[in-house]
């Protein structure tokens, strides 16, 4: 028998917490490093074994853990503790509303658990989506932790003004990973809610790491928005429990197969819309995008973790789970339009930003927008595309954040203007950046392929407005990435900057780069052997048809071409006889390609700034109307759902 799945799942959920506890008590750098490396190694090994075992044993869904009174009591205790923690902190910083939100939802759940104890069903459920999520969380999350070890040392080297709270920081990263595992492995709604709350609170603590005024404001913003979503979640659990005696997510989705109209259906839609609302807050869709932008004040590993494999992915994970239940009702309409609008507007705003982390943040929100729209459409093909987008996005975005973090450490700036000529200053990091950026929008990398699938499935499902959002949004997405690529590739005569990226950081960056390319190369296999059966199960259908296999093969061929083109071109270019010449600068080039003589015989330095098109795409112009429209959309949809249910 050997190790069974229950043990592996228990290890996945609990082991990160053990590592967190150990890390809290380790004060020296080396001890911490060994513990973190060891912990990450074990987590990755476990997650891989888990996946291999799952797929070799026929990849059938597994349900486990029937009766768990002790664990339930323990969870209850932790929930109360979290509530007290939030209340204390919100009183200390005079942000009472956060405490109020926390008390109300914890009280709601507590009341439910005490007055209506449920009959015990299984708590954990493993299917292919779970395994995909686990692989993503385990591998990407752990490498971010490895990266963080080297990064944080440099960070405190540069930022002596902040208190060194690394004994607090590293445990939180692992708590985060552990609770993400819990979230995706659970099927019991109360368990999902429990881990949901832990991720909200730990992201709040991580964002407030530096304890500056800005950090505290932003962390409380993240907290209240996520708690608001949590409140929606709690209300949904209560209604589901009282009306249908449903305790599990899979039961909720199954009941949709039987009930397709009438008052009961309307109540089900209300439950789904409340859960989807929670998903929207967590995945930072408009009008809740601001918390994720504010999260940029935290050290880079936090941003990488929040933006790629965890936190925001918890939101879209829930939305994708709910997708079959959102097809063709008010919940789906709300979610898909909010996703579409978010995708378009945030990609426009990203054009006007020059702070690298901000551009990445907007691009995250924007990409999550398409995933959300895919989930909201709720057809087989859109969900297929959504899951694919989620995978590709996790890897490339995590890599981009880490690369920007390393560049910031080496150069002391993360402004895109300062990355002018990065290819000459920090060639290796520049190559990582180029791979990451290309992976985000160019043919034939994963993101574009998934967008292609999304576009096709939106047309098939008749969502023409969403199709238009994608057409316009693709153009704006292309603009901000291309501009950035241009900056990096500018050949300026500049000094070589010392690259102080540690070996641990490089390990993480290289693994991410390999994953980015590897995922694209193996994607036809992933699509046919993992995604198609998964979608069939989710939607109870027999065939899934999104991209034709021949198209997928062409994409892989293109991938080879894309790597071959620069190599061939370089070979051809190197073998062309050419004389070097000075740049044409308009005035007389003074010989260094940087200075020119103007018409008054003065020597002037040339500087080529980027173009941010503020006149057209300014944040001020777009932010409030969008927030207003999206908030109105949510309020109207929920009001409609309540009206239908009553």
């Amino acid at each position, binding site marked *: 028998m050997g190790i069974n799945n229950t043990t592996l799942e228990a290890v996945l959920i609990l082991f990160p917490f053990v590592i967190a506890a150990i890390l809290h008590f380790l004060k020296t750098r080396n001890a911490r490093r060994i513990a973190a490396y060891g912990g990450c190694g074990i987590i990755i090994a476990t997650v891989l074994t888990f996946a291999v075992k799952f797929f070799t044993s026929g990849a059938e869904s597994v349900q486990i853990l029937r009766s768990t009174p002790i664990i339930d009591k323990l969870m209850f205790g932790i929930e109360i503790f979290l509530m007290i923690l939030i209340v204390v902190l919100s009183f200390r910083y005079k942000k009472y509303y956060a405490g109020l939100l926390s008390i109300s939802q914890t009280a709601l759940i507590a009341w439910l658990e005490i007055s209506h104890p449920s009959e015990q069903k299984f708590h954990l459920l493993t299917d292919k989506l779970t395994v995909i999520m686990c692989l993503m969380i385990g591998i990407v999350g752990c490498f971010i932790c490895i990266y963080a070890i080297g990064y944080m040392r440099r960070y405190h080297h540069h930022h002596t003004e902040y208190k060194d709270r690394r004994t607090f920081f590293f445990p939180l990263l692992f708590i985060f990973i552990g609770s993400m595992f819990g979230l995706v492995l659970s099927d019991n709604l109360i368990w999902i809610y429990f881990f949901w709350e832990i991720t909200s609170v730990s992201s709040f603590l991580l964002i407030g790491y530096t304890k500056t005024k800005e950090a505290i404001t932003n962390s409380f913003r993240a907290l209240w928005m996520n708690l608001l979503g949590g409140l929606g979640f709690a209300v949904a659990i209560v209604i589901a429990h009282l009306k249908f005696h449903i305790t599990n997510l899979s039961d909720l989705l199954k009941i949709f197969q039987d009930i397709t109209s009438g008052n009961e259906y309307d109540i089900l839609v209300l439950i789904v819309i409340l859960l989807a609302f929670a998903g929207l807050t967590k995945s930072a869709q408009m009008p809740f995008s601001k918390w994720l932008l504010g999260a940029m004040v935290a050290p880079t590993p936090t941003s990488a973790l929040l933006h790629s494999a965890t936190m925001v992915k918890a939101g879209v994970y829930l939305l994708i789970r709910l997708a079959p239940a959102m097809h063709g009702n008010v919940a789906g309409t709300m979610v898909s339009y909010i996703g579409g609008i978010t995708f378009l507007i945030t990609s426009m705003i990203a054009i006007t930003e020059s702070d690298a982390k901000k551009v990445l943040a907007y691009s995250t929100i924007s990409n999550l927008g398409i995933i959300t729209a895919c989930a909201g459409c709720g057809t087989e093909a859109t969900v297929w595309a959504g899951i694919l987008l989620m995978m590709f996005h996790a890897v490339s975005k995590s890599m981009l954040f880490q690369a920007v973090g390393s560049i910031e450490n080496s150069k002391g700036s993360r402004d895109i203007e300062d990355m002018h000529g990065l290819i000459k200053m920090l060639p290796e990091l520049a190559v990582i950046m180029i791979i990451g950026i290309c992976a985000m929008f160019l043919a034939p990398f994963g993101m574009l392929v998934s967008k292609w699938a999304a576009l096709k499935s939106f047309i098939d499902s008749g969502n023409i407005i969403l199709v238009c959002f994608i057409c316009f949004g693709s153009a704006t997405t292309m603009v901000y990435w291309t501009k950035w690529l241009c900056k990096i590739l500018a050949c300026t005569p500049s000094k070589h900057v010392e690259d102080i990226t540690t070996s641990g950081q490089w390990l993480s960056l290289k693994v991410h780069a390999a994953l980015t390319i590897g995922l694209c190369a193996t994607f036809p296999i992933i699509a046919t052997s993992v995604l198609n059966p998964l979608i069939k199960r989710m939607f109870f259908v027999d065939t899934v048809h999104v991209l034709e296999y021949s198209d997928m093969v062409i994409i892989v061929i293109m991938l080879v071409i894309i790597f071959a083109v620069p190599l061939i071109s370089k070979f051809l270019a190197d073998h062309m006889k050419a004389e070097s010449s000075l740049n044409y600068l308009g005035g007389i080039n003074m010989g260094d390609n940087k200075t020119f003589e103007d018409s008054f015989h003065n020597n002037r330095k040339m500087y*080529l700034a980027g173009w941010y098109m503020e006149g057209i795409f300014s944040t001020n112009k777009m932010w409030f109307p969008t927030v207003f429209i999206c908030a109105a959309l949510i309020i109207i949809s929920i009001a409609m759902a309540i009206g239908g249910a009553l």
Partner: protein
Amino acid sequence: MAIKIISIILYLVLAPIVGGLLNGIDRKITARMQGRIGPSVLQPFYDVYKLIKKDIFRINNMQYMFVWGFFILVVITGVLFFAGEDLLLVFFTLTTAAMFLVLEASTTNTPYSVLGSQREIAQMLSYEPMVLLTAVGFYMATGSFHVSDIIHADVPAIIYLPGVFVGFLFILTIKLRKSPFDISTSHHAHQELVKGITTELSGKMLAMIEITHWYENVFLMGIIALFILHEAWWSIPVALLVIAIAYFLEILIDNTSARVKWDVMFKSSWIVTIVAGVLNIVVLQILLMN
């Protein structure tokens, strides 16, 4: 399969010849419109031949790498198109190719070139939505993204897609670098950016850009033909006629309008995309649903 290979080979061999001739005709007609006699129709070939014989001056190595990349990707775009592959795949490849041209110019780090590349990005921003909507339109009208299926439809796609056709003609002006939207570089000697995006290219490299444009133009004319081509044999001469009219129209616009600023280009092309393209597709969707 055999037809596929033949049409790929025909494209590879004939496209530069046809593209060059199109350019020559363009210059002849332009000259007549301006009251000049104009050069021989074969002049573009003489020009390119002369450029090829010249020495190259280079700013840096990467520049030429990107020019080769641009060339290879544009050719692949055309090959995929004439092999009858997926239209979206074709357009994505074209975008990637355009990116290489932008990168070529910005890697030089010289004022005119970089300004040209930034304006090229603005051009891409302007035409990209309409290009994607064109593919969407074909899919909705014929039920397939594959060029090979689209040309075997029962009725010409333009019947369903008049608005998309108008929108595509509008952005074709940008793609062909015709006035009033020739802001990143121009065929005429009145460009305030010297030669914009190609300022830092010379000799063989400039010749390559020229040949790449020929390939690209033939591909773009192919898209126009796609609106007309269908099962009936007579659609082929009609398609050629429509191409001729469209091309003449572009030349006429080129010679009768003055260059506009980028924001006018951006706004007008997005408005045309919405009014002609989006509206057409929404109406088509409503028709399809009934």
